[in-house]
């Protein structure tokens, strides 16, 4: 019996890796370890369905318990890996137990970036990453009246949307000039700013948090901004990005750059160690610069890179080359993003911005490289194919609602427009 496949991290990448390794024919022992108490669960609903009471914690489970026995995958929860011995090929767990491995996969994910201001860790200030975090916010929302959300990214805005829908007063503080500034063009950002404002959320952009101030009970009672404003609140939710959990890899001497550096198959320079998921940084042919490896926080990237890594373990390497995609649900609006945009890309609007049914196409050198769709799921699916096939597209045609996008994927004159 070999030492088998040891996977550190039991969320999407780890779970998918175990599953894909079996499906691709790996027959050795598989051990999946996770530091949380819950069996692998879905995370996107934490900031969406769970906070709205539409989903129960039990309903988030990814696999039935019988699955693990059936697939001969040993799932060990509340276990923390503390060190990797690459020479002896074994991992030391908290408490001293040592697990040998033939293959090791780092699927350690990422953690919420802490708010680096005085009072940033006061009671009543929450991050949102895990099921426990979401349950704590849900419990808080039952009694709080006014919540201040710090960070106008996806986590912050989805949380704001859920809390506002539950009737709480919500302030959103964003350091940048725009909501979702790092990930969407101004048209999309403006749309979501209007949506939140219409729902009664108070938005504070270009606002820098200086401190969280406690009340008499020691819990957070106000957010102090650098411009002197004070936002009173009963609780704070912080969503200002994440830090990759790459310390284990760093300590083992593996190259890292805010994420474990791997190739398109998830391989580190150590032939027996791979990485996947939010902790990994990998090359992607659809990045602005394909030579610059990316770290993507999405289920799709986690699953796809995990499948590629599993293909290495199964002995038939297949690199991950998919178009990245993401989505966010806020109120009744669904945003879906395909591809990766840059500020200099040509922007072409298709559909009705005001009505909240549109796709914003980003073109670079005449090719569709990124599409942001709001309540246009079919266009999003097509967009992924348009980006993948690297078709040339005419801006006027894309903007014309009567132009059939599908025709760009068909051989013939429509697909052969000049650049």
């Amino acid at each position, binding site marked *: 019996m070999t030492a088998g496949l040891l996977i550190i991290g039991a969320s999407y990448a780890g779970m998918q890796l175990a599953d894909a390794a079996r499906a691709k024919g790996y027959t050795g022992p598989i051990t999946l370890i996770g530091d949380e108490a819950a069996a692998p669960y*879905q995370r*996107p609903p934490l900031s969406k369905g769970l906070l709205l009471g539409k989903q129960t914690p039990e309903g988030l489970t990814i696999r*039935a318990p019988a*699955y693990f026995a059936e697939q001969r995958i040993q799932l060990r929860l509340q276990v923390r890996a503390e060190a990797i011995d690459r020479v002896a090929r074994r991992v030391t767990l908290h408490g001293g137990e040592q697990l040998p491995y033939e293959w090791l996969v780092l699927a350690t994910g990422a953690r919420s970036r802490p708010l680096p201001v005085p009072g940033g860790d006061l009671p009543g200030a929450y991050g949102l990453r895990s099921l426990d975090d979401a349950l704590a916010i849900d419990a808080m929302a039952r009694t709080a009246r006014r919540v201040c959300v710090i960070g106008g990214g996806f986590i912050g805005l989805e949380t704001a949307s859920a809390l506002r829908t539950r009737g709480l007063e919500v302030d959103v503080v964003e350091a940048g000039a725009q909501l979702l500034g790092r990930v969407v063009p101004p048209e999309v950002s403006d749309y979501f700013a209007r949506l939140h404002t219409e729902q009664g959320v108070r938005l504070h952009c270009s606002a820098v948090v200086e401190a969280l101030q406690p009340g008499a009970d020691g819990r957070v009672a106000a957010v102090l901004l650098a411009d002197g404003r004070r936002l009173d609140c009963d609780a704070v939710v912080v969503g200002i990005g994440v830090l990759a959990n790459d310390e284990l890899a760093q300590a083992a001497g593996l190259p890292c750059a805010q994420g474990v550096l791997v190739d398109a198959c998830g391989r580190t320079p150590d032939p027996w160690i791979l990485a996947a998921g939010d902790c990994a940084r990998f090359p992607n042919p659809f990045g602005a610069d394909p030579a610059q490896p990316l770290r993507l926080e999405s*289920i799709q990237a986690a699953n796809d890179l995990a499948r590629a890594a599993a293909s290495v373990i199964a002995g038939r390497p297949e690199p991950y080359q998919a178009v990245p995609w993401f989505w966010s649900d806020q109120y009744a609006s*669904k945003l879906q993003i395909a591809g990766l945009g840059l500020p200099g890309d040509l922007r072409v609007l298709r559909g009705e911005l005001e009505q909240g049914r549109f796709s914003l196409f980003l073109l670079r050198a005449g090719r569709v490289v990124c599409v942001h769709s709001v309540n246009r*799921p079919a266009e999003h699916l097509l967009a992924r194919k348009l980006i993948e096939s690297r078709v040339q597209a005419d801006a006027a045609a894309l903007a014309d609602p009567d132009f059939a996008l599908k025709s760009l994927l068909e051989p013939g004159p429509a697909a052969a427009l000049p650049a």
Partner: protein
Amino acid sequence: MPAIHYLLQDGSTRTIDAPLGRSVMEVAILNNVRGIDAECGGCCSCATCHVYVDEDFIDRLPAPDEMEEELLDGVASERRRGSRLSCQIMVDAALDGLTVQVPASQS
């Protein structure tokens, strides 16, 4: 618990006693039914949990909403009258015996 029958790509059938209140997609994923990818985890975003609902059940299900309707236009395999996204079909007692066929491909 209502029994759901999944007709798989290899011609075999998996029958699963489904807990009430979960979707036909979730029941498939929980029980490792191959051929339902559900890349987005069941929030009606990706159209990779497409199934063909058995003729007898098509009209017993609530009709697809606008979002599902639009996504069904983008499914990878042929769209047929019984095409549904399994993440949008919730298991209830009336669905005992529901048969869904897994399409040839989801992407």
